[in-house]
């Protein structure tokens, strides 16, 4: 290779390998810092939801139509926020129980099965006991979060969420 060729090569690729590596690492680090900020915002979302839920859960909410619910039937309601579906179930014994409707596996809505007296998740066949919310079968890792109820003068009030 002649000296002249060498000069042309240098003009076409003026950045050395070390410098190139340095710049790519620096830029990637900046990108990771951006991702770090995004993850922090994601964590902040849960703090906001917590605040929102605890504010709304402070107020007992009456479940409309609960008084006329027959034993062995279930009723959909929303608690603690209008975007949190929950199921009120009247057991054969006449006792009321309520759970959040979101499956603890991958958040599919669970459905009450009257004939088997359990809550079933259609997504991956998760099953929960209607009386306790405990997992009976399938992939859900935790019991269904329970909703605390207060019954007075035929009215059923939701008073809080009991974590699993």
């Amino acid at each position, binding site marked *: 290779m002649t000296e002249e060729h060498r000069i042309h090569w*240098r003009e076409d690729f003026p950045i050395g390998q070390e410098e190139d590596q340095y710049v790519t690492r620096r830029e990637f680090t900046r990108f*990771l810092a951006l991702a770090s900020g995004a993850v922090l915002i994601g964590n902040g979302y849960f703090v906001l939801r917590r605040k929102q839920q605890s504010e709304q859960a402070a107020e007992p909410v009456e479940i409309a139509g609960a008084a006329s619910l027959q034993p062995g039937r279930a009723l959909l309601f929303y608690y603690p926020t209008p975007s949190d579906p929950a199921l009120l179930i009247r057991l054969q014994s006449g006792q009321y129980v309520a759970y959040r409707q979101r499956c603890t596996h991958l958040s599919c809505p669970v459905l009450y099965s009257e004939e088997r007296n359990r809550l079933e998740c259609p997504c991956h066949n998760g099953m929960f006991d209607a009386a306790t919310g405990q997992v009976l079968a399938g992939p859900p890792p935790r019991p269904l979060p329970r909703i605390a109820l207060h019954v007075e003068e035929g009215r059923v009030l939701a008073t809080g969420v009991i974590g*699993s």
Partner: protein
Amino acid sequence: MRLRSPRPDRMQQKTEGASAVLIMVLILLLLQLWLLNIAMEAFMAANNSLAVPTFLASAFCFALTLYALKALASLDKEGKSGR
């Protein structure tokens, strides 16, 4: 005609410094993802007691990341003034 940059050792040092910062930021980000996972799991289980501690720990990691970025910026400046 010289084919290499005038101060290869200095550049190599800078690259090594950037690599160290990169690894540190990467570890912090993995830690934050783990914290986010914990917060999400707890949220799904209607257990809200972990939301604030995980957020604070994540904020601490983010602050360390910003500090690392500052170190990277000073490495950059140093390199420019040293040229």
